[in-house]
């Protein structure tokens, strides 16, 4: 299995502060082409490329843009979501630090396409150095005429707010992120209306993940047809896989979509499990994706194949668990994180995540009962079915899948009970 460096091809090749270095490596061609094409053709080109969101939900990018572009309300906003909070996901940081000008170029093209004059980048609070780098970058871009009035001699004007997040995981969810930018508590809400209709300060807003946006200059520079040469028919392009957990070489690997299997990613690029033990389970799409057992390791790395196997590609954060750990402890670790992160808006998540965490704690102490297992299933299924946002709908999935895949681990936890 080989990496295909497309989005990461410039990482480490120029100093992040060096705009000239970026231009020498082919930078800004896409923006120039976009400004010459006009907004509608830009959206058309992205549509033909088949680009989908890389932040977890996988929504077609061009549809979002077109829906915001057709809104009559002004002003419109573009937000680049760099609040990379999902467990086991650290790919956006590679782009933000390693090829920031490409991300900025993508932001400018997106803002131009939807008609936004104000753009935001919301950077995860823990990425303090990254936020400082972006503050500097925004200043330099202003001086170079890439931000402000009349960009590169065109009639297009846009300003960029570099905003650092302030802690909560849920602020990476698009409505919570918008609430946060409005200086409100970061809480999700029901949709519709979608952000493209009623987003930041009630105005049409597009929220795109960093990796999604980094694809935009690639598509515009080479054209949609060339882009579609990468990946598979239904899922063109590459993806950044964040590989972590019990592997020898955890890192971010850029792969052409569908170019290999989970097993190959783990054993070839990741050089196998830490102690050479067999793999017990894998989460292919970040901490809220369902566990896959050993039988599914031959699964191709496409959204479709992973979803057929019973999980989801999500943020492409692949977390590996080797034999030797009980599934109860695996889900305990996950619930320890999510148990503190519900925004509190809806009951299934607010109460459910805490109750599930309590039950799993009880089980891991060997004090559980068969009733506890039934409750764990019931609460989990309820939250998946009726929670407001992606977090509530997804955090129970690893628990539910663990109950299916490793019932013996849970039964062992119950049997330890002296009663």
């Amino acid at each position: 299995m080989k990496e295909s460096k497309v989005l990461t091809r410039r990482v480490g090749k120029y100093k992040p502060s060096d705009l000239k270095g970026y231009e020498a490596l082919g930078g800004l061609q896409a923006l120039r082409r976009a400004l010459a094409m006009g907004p509608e053709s830009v959206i058309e080109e992205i549509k033909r490329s088949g680009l989908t969101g890389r932040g977890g939900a996988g929504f077609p990018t061009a549809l979002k843009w077109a829906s915001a572009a057709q809104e009559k309300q002004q002003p419109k906003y573009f937000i680049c979501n760099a609040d990379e909070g999902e467990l086991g996901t650290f790919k956006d940081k590679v782009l933000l630090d390693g090829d920031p000008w490409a991300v900025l170029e993508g932001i400018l093209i997106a803002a131009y396409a939807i008609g936004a004059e104000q753009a935001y980048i919301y950077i995860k609070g823990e990425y303090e150095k990254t936020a400082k780098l972006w503050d500097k970058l925004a200043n330099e871009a202003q001086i170079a005429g890439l931000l402000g009035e009349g960009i590169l001699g065109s009639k297009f004007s846009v300003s960029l707010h570099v905003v650092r997040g302030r802690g909560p995981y849920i602020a990476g969810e698009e409505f919570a992120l918008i609430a946060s930018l409005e200086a409100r508590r970061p809480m999700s809400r029901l949709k519709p209306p979608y952000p493209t209709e009623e987003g930041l300060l009630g105005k049409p807003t597009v929220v795109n993940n960093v990796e999604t946006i980094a694809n935009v200059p690639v598509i515009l520079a080479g054209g949609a047809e060339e882009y579609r040469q990468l990946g598979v028919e239904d899922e063109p392009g590459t993806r950044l896989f964040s590989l972590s957990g019990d592997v020898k070489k955890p890192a971010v690997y850029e792969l052409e979509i569908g170019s290999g299997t989970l097993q190959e990613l783990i054993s070839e690029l990741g050089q196998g499990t830490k102690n050479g033990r067999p793999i017990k389970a894998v989460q292919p799409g970040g901490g809220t994706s369902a566990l896959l057992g050993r039988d599914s390791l031959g699964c191709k790395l496409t959204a479709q194949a992973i979803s057929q196997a019973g999980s989801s590609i999500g943020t492409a954060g692949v977390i590996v668990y080797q034999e030797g750990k009980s599934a109860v402890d695996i889900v305990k670790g996950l619930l320890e994180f999510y148990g503190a992160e519900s925004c509190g808006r809806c009951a299934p998540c607010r109460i459910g995540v805490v109750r599930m965490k309590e039950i799993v704690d009880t089980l891991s102490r060997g004090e559980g009962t068969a009733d506890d297992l039934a409750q764990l299933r019931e609460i989990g299924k309820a939250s998946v079915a009726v929670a407001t946002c992606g977090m509530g709908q997804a955090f129970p999935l690893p628990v539910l899948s663990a109950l299916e895949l490793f019932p013996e681990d849970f039964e062992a936890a119950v049997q330890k009970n002296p009663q």
Partner: protein
Amino acid sequence: MAKFKMQTYQNLVKDSGGATKENLFSLLGKVQDKFGCVPREVVRDLAAKTRVAEARIYGALTSYGDFKIELEPES
């Protein structure tokens, strides 16, 4: 961490091109980073400038782990 001075804060607002609903969150962050907390008088002033209720800003500040409304006592 700088000691809080109303003048320093006012300069910060000026350097950010004034206080608006659109940059309120980012301003609160800058105040937090500069002074280690967002003091009451700042909340009051920003509320007046942005026409956002003081209570709402207070509510937001106290819900994020990284914001403080007063300096933590020195230990």
